[in-house]
């Protein structure tokens, strides 16, 4: 069945007027969204470039999570022990 905007119980002229109003409004809303599009896209990509899985993986790879048997060799005040 073909898609139509037409409302069965509305006169043709009212239907057409409603289509015109909604069409112009939708165009205006979408222009507003397009203005934000660059910000949204770049925002997502900047965030993910910094904090995405790859970024965290890279960070974690730099740490060693193995236990170590070595104790730090800082000077110990033996007199205090």
């Amino acid at each position, binding site marked *: 069945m073909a898609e139509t905007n037409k409302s069965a119980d509305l006169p043709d002229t009212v239907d057409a007027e409603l289509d015109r109003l909604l069409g112009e409004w939708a165009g*205006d809303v979408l222009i507003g969204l397009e203005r934000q599009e660059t910000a*949204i896209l770049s925002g997502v990509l900047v965030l993910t470039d910094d904090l995405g899985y790859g970024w965290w993986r890279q960070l974690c790879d730099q740490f060693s999570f193995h236990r170590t048997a070595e104790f730090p060799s800082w000077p110990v005040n033996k007199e205090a022990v």
Partner: protein
Amino acid sequence: MSKDLFRDLYAVHSKQIFSYLLGRTNNKEIAADLLQDIFLKVWNRIDVVRSIPDDERLYWLFSIASNRLKDYYRRSSNRRKAEDRLRSDGKTHSDGDLSGVLAGRERFRELELHIDRLPEELRCMLLMKVIGGMNSAQIGNVMNQPPGTIRYKIAQARRLLAESLRLLDAESIGGRRGSNG
């Protein structure tokens, strides 16, 4: 390439998701913020997207959008109530006469007031069609209702809108004028 797939997804589906978010939240800024959140989640699951057939990706996106909305409502229910109160306080009740209405943005504001007053479900369906460019089968899949029901409800939304805009009155006045003249 992940970024290309992501940009394609955004180009094809962002308007549809946005129209749904706008229909549900009634606020362009909140809808745009939620859209960004949703696409951030999409980016984080971009590997999953590859395994989803093209014709099912829209519904996968809507499932993310729906969950994000629930989360948003849960977190901001109190704030939203306050915003609703403020919004309703700030609204001026117009006489709805669009024929003599101011041009440009003022007229859009007027129209938005009337769209805001539609029941949420009807508003959402109408906006998914008008802004998202979705057909009744697609909206039906998202809203879990048969396409025939969607068509009926969109017609209902249009009827309510025409009534509140007094387009029907204008029509009958125009008709009378036409018959008199």
